């Protein structure tokens, strides 16, 4: 079999690619395969896609956004296509929501929630905020038992916050 690219050498490498949901087969020689490998390296990757998407949302002044926790800038995010830490999502909030709608067609989470637990590093007000979201969700899903449990927990935290502010 002849090489599909140079038509000179015998094809020894056989590639099957799925591009846009279509299968294509190519048969090439070792020399052309090496060239092809280089091409693939420089090909479109997920980070290109992301930076392409973010560019659509012209945001020149937003490019100076920086996540205060890990130091990743929005500019850097566009280049690597990956966030530096969980706080980047809040730091780039608006841009992230736009991007997620572009990627997933939605920016609304509908999956499961992790087990709730009180961790020492949670400040009470942020815990309260989170619990209220859990509560809304439980109500919207008509999980009333869960909602009642969360409501009780909210009451405890509210009392705790009141106690703390009185003692100050």
């Amino acid at each position, binding site marked *: 079999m002849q090489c599909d690219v140079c038509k000179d050498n015998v094809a020894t490498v*056989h*590639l*099957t*690619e*799925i591009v*846009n*949901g*279509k*299968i294509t087969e190519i048969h090439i020689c070792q020399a052309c395969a090496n060239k092809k490998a280089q091409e693939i390296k420089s090909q479109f990757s*997920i980070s290109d896609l*992301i930076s392409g998407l973010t560019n659509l949302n012209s945001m020149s002044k937003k490019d100076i956004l920086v996540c205060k926790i*890990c*130091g*990743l800038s929005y500019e850097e995010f566009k280049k*690597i*296509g*990956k*966030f*530096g*830490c*969980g706080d*980047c*999502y809040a730091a780039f909030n608006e841009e*992230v*929501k736009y*991007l*997620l709608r572009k*990627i*997933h*067609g*939605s*920016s*609304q*989470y*509908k*999956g*499961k*929630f*992790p*087990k709730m*637990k009180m*961790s020492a*590093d949670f400040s009470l007000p942020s815990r309260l905020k*989170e619990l209220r*979201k*859990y509560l809304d*969700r439980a109500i919207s899903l008509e999980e009333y038992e869960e909602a009642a449990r969360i409501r009780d927990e909210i009451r405890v935290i509210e009392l705790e916050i009141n106690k703390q502010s009185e003692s100050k």
Partner: protein
Amino acid sequence: MKIDEFFSVLRSGEWLRGTGSYSDIVISSRMRLARNIKGFPFSAKISQPQKKEIISKVDSSLNQAKFSKPLFLFLMDDLNDLDRQFLMERHLVSLEHTQDPQGKAIFISKDETISILVNEEDHLRIQVIKSGFDLPLVWDVVNNIDEKMSSALDYCFSPDIGYLTSCPTNVGTGLRASVMVHLPGLIMTKRINRILELIAKLSFTARGLFGEGTQALGNFFQISNQVTLGSSELEIIENLTSIIKQLRSQEEEARADLLLKHKLNLENKIWRSFGILQNARIIDSAETLQHLSLLRLGVDLGIIKGISYDMLNALFIITQPAHLQKLHGKVLSVQMRDALRASILREKLVIT
């Protein structure tokens, strides 16, 4: 523990046993959850000491969880290139996990159905793989592991957008559900492209044999969800289930058509493939996959008898480069591998 003590090279993992429903067309069902731990930077910004800390946190969370199946830890930088490739050939680690192994780890169950990748693109990639078509069962197992681990680990999570991941394409459920299917009929009848287009329209995607960025070899495809936000885990599973059911009936239809209209041609192809596998003295891995695929079709259709799925599936795995070298006990050149592969095939494909 050493890789060689843990695995039996000739024996494939549970997911390749060829059991379970739809096992003529569906090889395996797999799910992975991407999770990150609060208070640590993601892979792009994490330091080596932080990676170590994560491995030990995960280790203790697993000890606390007390799973019925014990998980064994391997540090990727303790392994050599051959070991790492061996793990990839068994679908236990991703391509990404074998590259730049520093600070990466994997926990594996003895039957190879559970593998937890630590410090890949996300802190945790919890993976469960089973033979045949059973997404609800796989979800039960992976969800149970996730729930147990989450009581010891604080995950990065937002009630609005779900589990936070390194790459925005995984945010939300962090779930990638995929089913490995063997579709020689759809390929031979050239109906595959139309079907892959339809799958893409439903936000599902077809990948090659080893997942992201790999080739579609031997008529095998991994069908998986592309979108992780906006649908719940169960919706993703339901949609994938209905796609696979459709694919299966389309593949069956294609096979029936081939038998009806091109029976002699089909039998000719299958027997020739069998002949090559039984007689070749030198054979590369791509050619092996191609002929094994046709042989599998021959077994599916009852044209070839006396070969078990277990054996066929094992051959798909042990004829890969790292497995051959493990069997032989040392590094082999390409030419030597091609000769060894041919001799193993000849030895195993004797019908008794």
